[in-house]
């Protein structure tokens, strides 16, 4: 993932007067102190040490925004051309840092408290109790185990997506029609999908899929009754929405393949099967790996369909980690514990994705 264009080298002869530099610095400091001052005042007000303050913390946010703007402006004032260059990425960096780092730290604090929204006491730090509770929580481990199944299902999705990409890449008529049609499921919101398919088409009495199942000899179809079938149905619905995603990436890869190599293999007498396995598939490996990795990352966030179709049932057989924590928040208001689970999940994801990328990197190096 290191696409880097040519660098634009610029030599500028900025002469910035010391007064201008000073003005810029003063601007940042004034805005920064203003922000800190407002924040400090509000903290004092919230803890009841000063008699009056703001109704909520929004003024602090505004003061932060003023400081961020001042920081951006000061880049140009103090550093001239170099500052103008920094200005390209500074807004995005500030945005992400303030919206990710602070909430993450705050979340880390919450996760070691016994906070429950239903209780009146507010939050109390409770040390490692949450971790101990997690260790004994069979439902959480079950949800993690389900995530393993869900992630493994990506390979099946990949196989189907590859097949569809090959079909779309063949010499066919009405290619645009098929491409748009195949793309459509990706556009639909998982919530609508869970009603359209999960609740309506798989309805046991009237749903068309249940009818079809009866025609095919399954006497009393129940799609969400037994754990295995339910899990498979969730996988199928998720696959239905996301197969187009991989398909498009693989199709783009197929279209970028060098034609000469494939023609050469044909001239040398390779059958279609051979030219696929020995030419196309190896050449497609980089694209395949990218598609699979991104799909796995998306899969790790799987929740909407599960929340809306089965709410994790039967007996937690379809739970993903996200849907489990969602219910912990929604139904049990168990905020401290839920956040700890989310943090643990984040750590597991980071480890998993890092390992995945490492393995992929090593695996990709070998052929050369």
């Amino acid at each position, binding site marked *: *993932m290191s*696409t*880097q264009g040519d*660098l*634009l080298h*610029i030599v500028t002869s900025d002469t910035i007067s010391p007064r201008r530099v000073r003005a810029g610095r003063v601007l940042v400091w004034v805005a920064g102190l203003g922000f800190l001052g407002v924040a400090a005042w509000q903290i004092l007000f919230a803890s009841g040490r000063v008699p009056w303050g703001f109704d*909520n913390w929004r003024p*602090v946010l505004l003061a932060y925004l003023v400081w961020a703007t001042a920081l951006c402006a000061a880049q140009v004032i103090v550093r001239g*051309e170099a500052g103008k*260059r920094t200005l*390209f*990425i500074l*807004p*995005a*960096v500030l*945005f*992400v840092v303030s*919206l990710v780092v*602070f*909430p*993450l730290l*705050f979340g880390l604090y919450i996760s070691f408290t016994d906070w429950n929204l239903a209780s009146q006491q507010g939050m109390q730090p409770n040390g490692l109790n949450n971790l101990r509770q997690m260790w004994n929580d069979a439902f959480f481990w079950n949800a993690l185990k389900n995530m393993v199944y869900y992630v493994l299902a990506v390979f099946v999705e990949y196989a189907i997506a590859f097949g569809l990409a090959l079909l779309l890449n063949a010499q*066919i008529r009405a290619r*645009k029609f*098929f491409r*748009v049609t*195949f*793309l459509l*499921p*990706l*556009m639909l*919101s998982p*919530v*609508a999908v869970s009603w*359209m398919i999960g609740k*309506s088409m798989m309805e046991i009495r*009237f749903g068309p899929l249940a*009818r079809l199942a009866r025609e095919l000899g399954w006497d009393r179809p129940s799609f969400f009754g037994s754990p295995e079938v339910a899990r498979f149905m969730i996988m199928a619905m998720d696959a239905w929405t996301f197969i187009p995603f991989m398909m*498009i*990436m693989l*199709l*783009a*890869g197929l279209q*970028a393949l060098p034609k000469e190599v494939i023609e050469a293999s044909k001239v040398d007498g390779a059958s279609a099967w051979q030219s696929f396995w020995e030419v196309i598939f190896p050449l497609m490996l980089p*694209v395949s790996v*990218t*598609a699979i990795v991104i799909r796995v*990352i998306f899969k*790790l966030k799987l*929740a*909407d369909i599960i*929340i809306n179709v089965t709410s994790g049932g039967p007996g937690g057989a379809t739970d993903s*980690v*996200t849907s489990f*924590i969602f219910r912990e928040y*929604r139904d049990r208001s168990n905020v401290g514990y839920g*956040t700890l689970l*989310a943090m643990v*999940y*984040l750590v597991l994801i980071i480890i998993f994705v890092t390992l995945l990328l490492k393995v992929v990197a090593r695996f990709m190096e070998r052929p050369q």
Partner: protein
Amino acid sequence: MTGTTQIFRDAGSDRMHRAKWWTSRIAIYGALTIWAIICLFPIYWTVTTSFKLAPDVMKGNMVPWLDFTPRWKGWQSLGLSPDVIFQTSTVREEFLKRFWNSLITSLTSSGLAVVLGSLAAYGLSRFSYRFGFMRNSDISFFFLSQMILPPVVLALPFLVLYKSLALLDTRIGLILLYTLMVLPIVIWIMRDQFAGIPVELEEAALVDGLGIWGAFFQIVLPIALPGMVAAFILSLVLTWNEYFFAALLTATDAKTLPVMVASQTGSQGINWWSMAALSGAAILPLVVVAIFLEKYIIKGMAAGAVK
């Protein structure tokens, strides 16, 4: 002229070849048709069900006019059928409010993400930065690593944070989160786009007296516009369909369409026709987008895949 002996004929091997060609054609089109049915049937089912009455649903009638007479029942319950469209309807107001919320949040957050992301991606593909120990590749990794951040980790801290900032149940709150969510994807797509633009163009512009921002706006931006549209539409799809944050962070005012759809299912048994109409209305905008702007969606998704 009696002898009708054919002088030129296909050799056996040629005929075999043709038979093989036909089988492969049939197999290809068969597979394509089957998958097309798999893709389209749920949409067809939803749309037709929204015109059905209860008996039609129970009998499993499928084809309008042949099996059953289409009625406006489903759309009537949303207040959107021709006979009630001019009357006041609380359901319609509710629906339009949710629709409007979804529209505003998804358009604004996608727009914001494209602006911030394009600027950052351009900077990263053209200049070399150094913030402390962070070089360009580290900054890129920092942005892209946000992609693996599961929403559930941020949900609760944001709930508490928004409560104290009075941003809970507001569109601004959702917009900020959605922007954060799609920003890495935008940066990923746009970095690829900018890397494909030759740097000589800007060099020429700089020689001719434009500043770097002038060169960016007047030279680079018009070239990168299709890529930006692609990134915008992809963000739009993700933000329009987002359910998790909306379910946790909105209650009445800023509730979006997916939350409305989800909240209907549990309430009063399943009201088939109105649910079908609601789902249909929720997916319609993006189906239209997919049909007309398919090119850009594919371009956006292909951007990162092929290098």
